[in-house]
């Protein structure tokens, strides 16, 4: 039966050492990009940071089936936390990442406790409202956040005490790619673990999970906190790499973009997050340089195409094509 409804693709648990594959492919891909586009490193770094952000969203949407439009909340908290630590305490980048992760995790925990008791439109609404609260708070608390002007002049100390961040952005790129590879490794391990299986169970049938004794709410909060920590890391990286944090880190459009990127690529298998982010960022870059607002035409049509034609995202395209070819041959 043709399922016209958008649903997340079936997730296969990884086998043997396959949990290393996403990390390795990213390192290989990034190395190639480094060589082919040596002067576009800041753009490439932004893509990598966004990939980390979208991968964290895949954990909650693709694995556990939790759909929010407020993922920017944890990203923004991570960004501000890292910025503040760098300005006031220590410019060590890894410390900034740690603090960003903690900030994201704490925000996820606080908001998750309320959010995850709800479903559907209410859940979406509350997730949006949380980011609005954070954005307004950041805007008002000038003494802490710099208000609408944000934090500037965030400097980062040498990575591991050895590698100074250079002007061309090489160290920043390698740094970000390493974090992405580490995050992917962690996520793959998590997906293949009993916890990951439980999340897929919750996405499949929360009522069945309750009937086998699973404290569903607690599990959801746990994955939300983990995803929040990773989103916080992405935000922290962004702050460190660009040297700025503004209230737009809490924008609703950022949360919406993350969802679009994930769905474009396909939720549930980390590759989708990577592919979707790459495509979105590249198309945006190209379209925006032609005409900034008409980029919305492109993304609008892309969304409609995905939803009407390719519900499982681009990663499902090879499978669809293969089936199509088999049928016509």
């Amino acid at each position, binding site marked *: 039966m043709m399922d016209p409804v958008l649903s997340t693709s079936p997730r296969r648990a990884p086998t043997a050492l396959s949990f290393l594959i996403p990390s390795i492919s990213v390192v290989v891909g990034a190395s190639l990009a480094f060589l082919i586009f040596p002067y576009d490193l800041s753009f490439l770094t932004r893509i990598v940071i966004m990939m980390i952000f979208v991968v964290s969203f895949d954990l909650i949407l693709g694995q556990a089936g939790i759909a929010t439009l407020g993922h920017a909340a944890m990203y923004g908290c991570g960004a501000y936390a890292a910025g503040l630590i760098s300005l006031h305490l220590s410019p060590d980048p890894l410390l900034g990442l740690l603090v960003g992760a903690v900030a994201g995790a704490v925000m996820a925990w606080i908001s998750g406790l309320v959010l995850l008791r709800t479903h559907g439109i209410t859940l979406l609404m509350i997730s949006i409202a949380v980011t609005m609260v954070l954005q307004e708070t950041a805007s008002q608390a000038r003494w802490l956040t710099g208000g609408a002007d944000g934090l500037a002049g965030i400097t980062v100390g040498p990575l591991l005490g050895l590698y100074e961040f250079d002007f061309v952005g090489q160290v920043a790129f390698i740094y970000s790619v390493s974090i992405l590879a580490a995050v992917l490794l962690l996520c793959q391990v998590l997906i293949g*673990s009993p916890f990951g*299986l*439980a999340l*897929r169970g919750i996405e*499949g049938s929360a009522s*069945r*999970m309750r*009937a086998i*004794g699973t404290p569903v709410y607690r599990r959801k909060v746990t994955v939300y906190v983990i995803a929040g920590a990773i989103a916080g890391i992405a935000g922290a990286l962004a702050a460190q790499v660009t040297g700025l944090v503004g209230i737009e880190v809490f924008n609703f459009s950022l949360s919406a973009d993350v969802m679009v990127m994930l769905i474009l690529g396909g939720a549930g298998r980390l590759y989708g997050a990577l592919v979707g982010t790459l495509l979105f960022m590249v198309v945006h870059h190209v379209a925006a340089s032609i005409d900034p607002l008409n980029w919305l035409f492109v993304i609008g049509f892309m969304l409609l195409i995905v939803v009407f034609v390719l519900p499982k995202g681009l990663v499902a395209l090879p499978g669809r094509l293969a089936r199509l070819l088999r049928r016509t041959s």
Partner: protein
Amino acid sequence: MNDGLSIVGLSKNFGGLQVARDLTLTLPRGSRTALIGPNGAGKTTFANLLTGVLKPTSGKIVLNGQDIGSLSESARVRAGVAKTFQITNLFRDLTVRENLRLPILEREGRTHQFFRRADGWSDIEAEIARLMQDLNIQPLADKPVRGLAYGQQRLVELALTLAVKPKVLILDEPAAGVPSTESHFIVEAIKRLPQDLSVLIIEHDMQLVFEVADRIIVLVNGAILMEGTPDEVVANKQVRELYLGAGHV
């Protein structure tokens, strides 16, 4: 009674509608009890009251001396009361193996081990294999449940609930929708259930009831009409009226 499930004065009403009236019964350890009654008698309501899906208006539910009436649904499962779903409720995108792995991992408390593979315990994998063998579903082991025939899904449903290893097992119409060529697997599986397990079978299929039950409770309009051995129930005048009509008694 400290061994088994004891229900005292369980009642439930929705506004003016009384769906469970002062139900009192026991399911001793090792018993095989069938719950029968016409449609709308309140059998599924009763089951939902036991599992915690519905909160009673009054009454007590005691399992092995512990009052479980205030526990949530998942807490009751952890305490030892599990039920199959009348309408199959499985993890459709997961394979049969994964469907069975989940309850075992949950039962063994291994879900928080982030850094081990879900299929990394040989004792669990062996248990899954045994379960599948008991219900003759090994050939389906690595197929997503979504693609299975309804009868096969019923078997997986039963296996999943058995994997919980409850103390009290409620089977909600286990044979419903299963073709007669396959229903004997279910009957065999029920007969092979652990001896110290209390089993409550909600069924319409009287043949199955007579094959596995040593006691039958007849529920009508939310109240217990009578309770007894299969022979006693069959001989009972009111029950015969109920099932065969007044003219046939």
